[in-house]
Structures are given as C-alpha cells and as structure tokens.
C-alpha cells in the first residue's frame, strides 16, 4: 500500500492536471482559441505550420442552402468547429456511383444526410457546452504507407504533449473498428506509447487496458517506427509557441505526400497517454519545469536525453541509414484477401443501408522471422516452403511444373529460358520475374517475387528468389540489392526489433 503511494507520486491525476498545470499555464484566451478549430487552424497556417486544407465553412442555414455540394471531393472530413473528443466528426472516404458518400462507419450519406448532420451541428449537439456551432469541410489526410496496415479505415495521429517547449510524452493513436475509424481513445481507439528519442512505439493500450496486438488486423503493435519523427517534435513545439498554451497536446497526422500535418491542438489533454507509455507524466513535467529552452532543437535534445530509451542511434543520425547486424529479425508483409460483411450501424441517424455490404478487403498480414544479412549475395532469397506458406503456392507450383522438362546449362540465359517456358508459365504481374543464378554449384533458374520486408522498422520492397533452403539455418537471406538503405555492422548483436 505504502509502496503504491510512493510509486504513484510521479503520476499525473485529473486533480493535479487541472490545478497545477492547466490552470496556471493555459490562459482563458489561449484555451478559447484552441477550442475553436477554425481559428486555431488559421493561426497555425499563418505561422507556416502545415494544417489540412479547408474546403468550405457552413455558418448558418443560408450557407447550407447555397452550398455547392458538387464541389466537394470524393473524400473529406466534416467537423463541428467547437467539437471535443472526436464527437460529431464524419470522415468520408469514398463516393459511390450515385454520388452518395461513404463514411468510415460504413454508412452511406446523401446530400440530405449531410445537411441533416450539419443542422445537428448548428444546434450545438456536439459542441462543448451545447451552444450553437458552425461546421466545416476539411481535407482528408491520405494515410502514409507505413501506418496503413495498423489503421482501421480512419487516420492514425500522434499526440505530443509539450510543456515548457519540451516534448515530454507522445502517443500514436490508431483508429479501430470499435472506434468507427476515429483515433480518439475514449471511443475505443488504441494508444501506443512512443520512445520519444527514437519515435518507435513501445506499449499499447485500448480502453485503459494493455494489449499486444491490433484487435482488427492482429498485427504486433510494438516496434513501429514513426516516419518524420524529428519533424513531428519540431512542429509540436512550434504549436506551443504559437498557441501560447503552456500545457498543450498537439495532434499530428502524417500525410502520404505532405508529411506531418497538425490536426488540432488541445488545452485539456487526456491522461491515458501515461498508460500507453507505462510512464508517469507528472515526473516528466516536473523535470522540465524551469529549464531555459533556447529553440526547437534544444527542446528535442532535452526530451531525448531525459526521456529517451538507450541511445544507440548516433551513426544512424549521421548517415541517415539504419544499422543492421548479421542476423536480424525481420517481418515479411503479405496480402490476404478477406471477404467481409459490414452491417449498417443501427445507432446512426439517416438512411441506413438495408442489406449487409459485402466488401472484399485485401488485408496485410505479417510473418516474423530471423534472416541472415549477407552482403556477399546480390539477390535476396527465401525458402520455397515458406513462400508457399505466405500465399504464393499456386505460382510456385506453376513455375516448377513449367521448368520440369527444361534443360539448364551454363550457356542458358534468362531470355532463352523465359522464351522456353512462355507457354506454360504466365507471369503474374510486375511483382513476378525470373533470374539465372550462377555459382560454384552450377547454374540455376529461379522464380523471383517482390515482397515487402520490414528491416529494423524500415519497409523495403525486395526481390526474393525462391529456392529450397529447408536444410539451412535461415529461411531468408537478405542480399545487397535490398540493403541500399542500410549499413551493416557485423559486431551488432542480433536483437528482436519487436520489443519481445
């Protein structure tokens, strides 16, 4: 009991957050500005901080009548200006042939439905204290490739808490089926703690409970490397300076093309971030209090020194390349087709889709294994049985059959052999090819398939030659062609990148 109290001294509770941090640090005007999404967006934009574009603002019934619906793009986000906690936000991710839109909840929206929703926003349904509100349409961020497998329909975002110009704690928030594609934790989204020095995810929490795997995609949640990490921290600090909120939670999403974009700033940032990081926040706030921080990079350095995990990335910082050992844990991503029935939600207002919609969804799955990094090999290769396991059985069997009666000798070239098997083997798209491999054992003619491989958190598309490695220690060899983005350090010990 006593140890519990002593150990919990560094935790930030609701009372302390409100009284010790929000009250003195966040002045009323700054809070009012943060709660007004359009105004804070304008402020950030004027200070050259990237924000999503606004397609249109609807202030009253007149605006609504005159609104040009045809000008809306296929995907957008509809938001109440004073909403809190993701309520009232509709994320539209596609348009059907009949011009109706589809939201991330799987609901269909006609113009009439959108008008009704905007009327609700006018009435103050979703605003902080029920006062009347205005609505606006905003650009829908295009999800970046690295985070895509982890997000259910919506956009993941990164919450960074900044205090005294130091990013003290951060969390990656993932939308789930339960949260209907929204990244808000109290709606059922997942929060991932982030090592603030490296930008790599650590622990995961959903509804205040620790979890290991994504409930929808079953992907492992630790070890995700967040791109643009340094830039994200810089932007978060700039947001604090501009918004004048002493204690701020900045929500940043990563756009496929634009990179980090600020979704919103919060004056009342939640406390679950402590569970996702398994680290007490008050302790960190107290540590950075009173430090004189010169600029963004100074703030980031302080955060890295004080709150980062072990620092081993010095070389990587300089060369910009990840360092690999001789044996590395890797993940191979492969696609699995999944037919899913989505039932319309009975909770929502408006026109419901009566029949369940059958959508074919191509899901990504991951296989984790240890691979040998071999700078002596040009091409990467993968064991035949493993490749079959990953869903390439059909094409491998077809190729094997096609080359059964073909003679291969040292005079054979790829062109000649390709010509010979042409009738029995149709290449299935750009990801499939063949290769001739000459070695001391002779000449072999192999099938190659491009696979997505995650090496030390970095995803590379790697051409893999398929061969029988069943009696060898490692089922996968990573050769030079796949290693352009890395440095290899033979003395680096094999460690798992999954945090296991």
């Amino acid at each position, binding site marked *: 009991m006593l140890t519990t109290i002593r150990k919990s001294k560094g935790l930030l509770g609701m009372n302390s957050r409100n009284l010790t941090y929000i009250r003195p640090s966040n002045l009323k005007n700054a809070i009012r500005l943060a709660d007004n999404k359009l105004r804070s967006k304008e402020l950030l934009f004027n200070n050259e901080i990237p924000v999503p574009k606004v397609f249109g603002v609807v202030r009253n019934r007149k605006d609504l009548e005159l609104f040009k619906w045809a000008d809306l793009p296929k995907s957008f986000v509809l938001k109440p200006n004073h909403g809190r906690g993701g309520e009232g936000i509709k994320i539209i991710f596609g348009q059907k042939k009949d011009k109706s839109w589809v939201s991330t909840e799987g609901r269909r929206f006609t113009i009439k439905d959108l008008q009704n929703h905007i009327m609700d926003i006018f009435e103050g349904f979703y605003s902080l204290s029920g006062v009347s509100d205005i609505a606006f349409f905003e650009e829908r961020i295009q999800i970046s490739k690295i985070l895509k497998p982890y997000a259910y329909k919506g956009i993941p975002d990164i919450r960074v808490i900044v205090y005294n110009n130091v990013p003290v704690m951060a969390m990656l928030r993932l939308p789930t089926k339960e949260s209907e594609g929204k990244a808000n934790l109290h709606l059922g989204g997942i929060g991932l703690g982030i090592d603030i020095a490296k930008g790599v995810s650590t622990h995961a929490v959903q509804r205040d409970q620790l979890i290991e795997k994504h409930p929808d995609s079953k992907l492992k949640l630790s070890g995700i490397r967040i791109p643009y990490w340094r830039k994200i921290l810089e932007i978060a600090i700039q947001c604090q300076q501009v918004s004048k909120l002493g204690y701020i939670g900045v929500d940043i999403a990563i756009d496929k093309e634009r990179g980090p974009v600020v979704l919103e700033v919060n004056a009342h940032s939640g406390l679950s971030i402590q*569970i996702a990081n398994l680290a007490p926040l008050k302790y960190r706030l107290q540590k950075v209090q009173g430090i004189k921080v010169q600029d963004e990079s100074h703030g980031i350095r302080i955060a890295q020194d004080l709150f980062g995990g072990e620092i081993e990335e010095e070389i990587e910082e300089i060369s910009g390349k990840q360092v690999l050992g001789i044996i590395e844990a890797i993940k191979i991503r492969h696609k699995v087709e999944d037919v899913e029935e989505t039932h319309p939600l009975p909770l929502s207002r408006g026109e419901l889709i009566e029949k369940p919609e059958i959508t074919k969804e191509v899901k990504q799955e991951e296989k984790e294994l240890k691979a040998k990094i071999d700078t002596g090999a040009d091409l990467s290769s993968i064991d035949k049985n493993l490749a079959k396991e990953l869903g390439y059985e059909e094409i491998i069997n077809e190729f094997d059959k096609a080359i059964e009666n073909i003679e291969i000798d040292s005079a054979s070239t790829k062109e000649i052999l390709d010509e010979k098997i042409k009738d029995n083997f149709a290449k299935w798209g750009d990801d499939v090819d063949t290769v001739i491999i000459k070695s001391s054992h002779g000449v072999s003619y192999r099938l190659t398939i491009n696979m997505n491989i995650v090496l030390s958190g970095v995803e590379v598309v790697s051409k893999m030659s398929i061969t029988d490695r069943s009696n060898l220690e490692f089922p996968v060899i990573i050769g030079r062609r796949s290693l352009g983005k890395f440095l290899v350090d033979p003395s680096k010990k094999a460690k798992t990148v999954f945090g296991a």
Partner: protein
Amino acid sequence: MSEIINFIISQGVDVDTVYLILALPFIATLIVIFRQIIGVKSFGIYTPLVLAFAFWAIGLKYGLAIFVVVLVSGTAMRYFLKKFRLLYLPRIAIVLTVISIAILGLLTLAGYLGKIGLASTSILPILIMITLIEKFISTQVEKGIRTATLLSIETIIISSAGYYFIIWDSFRNLILNHPEYIILLLVINIILGRWTGLRLREYFRFKDVIKHVDNN
C-alpha cells in the same frame, strides 16, 4: 438541540425544513469528496444533490423505480424521435410528455397492485426527477450512451449515499445540535479545492503504470 435551532423553530419554521436546509451543504460536500477524492463522477453537483433529496421525499425504493422509468422511457423516446427531424426544445417536450404518461402508468399500476406508498407519492420529487432527464439526454448526445449510462449509475450511487446520510439519525442529531459545523465545510472545501493528489480510482486506472515505476 442547539439554541440557534431552537430559536428558529420557535419562530415557526418547521424542524424538518431546518434540518434539510442545513443538510444540503453537507451532502454537497459529500458529493465533492466522491468526485475529487474517490473519483466517482456524476452529472455535475446539482443533479445528485436534488436526487438525494427526492429519494428522501419518496423513499429510496420507489425513488429508484421512478428514476429508472424516467431514464429508460426518456432514452427509448430519444431513439424513436431520432428519425424525425425536430428542433431541440420541441423534442425534449415530446420526451417529457411520454415520461409523464409512463409515470402516470407506473403510479396507477402501483395502486392497482396495492403499493399505496408509491401510488400516493407527492408530485414535487417526481417533477425533479423528470427535469433531470434533459441533463441525461444532453450527456447522451454529447458523450455517447456508454458514458451517459455510466454517469447515471454513478449519479445513483452518490445520490443513494446522500440519501442514507439524510435519514441517518446520528447525522440529524449532529446537525441540529451543532449547526456551527457548517463553518467547517468551508475549510474542508477550500482544502478539497486545492487537492492535487490522485483520486482513489486513478490508482486502479494507472495500476499498470505504477507497476512499471522503478523502486528507487
């Protein structure tokens, strides 16, 4: 009984009225303790407060019965009305109409079944409970049914605790004998207003974090 209380009563003020008025700030402080120290939330401070007194007026059993009927019929009505596009106030008025009918039905049924206590309930506490429905519905809209239901349950817990205090004889005697203790409430609330410690509930919420804190 304290001299002040005796004086007030001798002026013709009913002793129950004196007691209830003096009990009000005590129950309010109790709700503050629930919120700041324990971490049980509710619909603000006013809702659990009046609900506790409504429970006192008609008894906990019947009070709960009526409150649950109000909440359930109100929520059902809200979902039913979602289909029609109505402005907020008319919509709430319709909800109130339906609740009134439901309550009337409940009272009639109670009388028919011989539960005279429920059938002859006074109108004021019932009115109080009906007006609370607006708060409940706006919470449903703002924070979702899950949060609203949780908050209702917690409100009921706090109000029941308040109810038990009001009917507790020792509490009544304490207040009537020492009304000056009310000054103490000011001190307690100033302390509570500056309390930055963890709420009891947060020890459970953050148990995993606490486990991970190093021992030194």
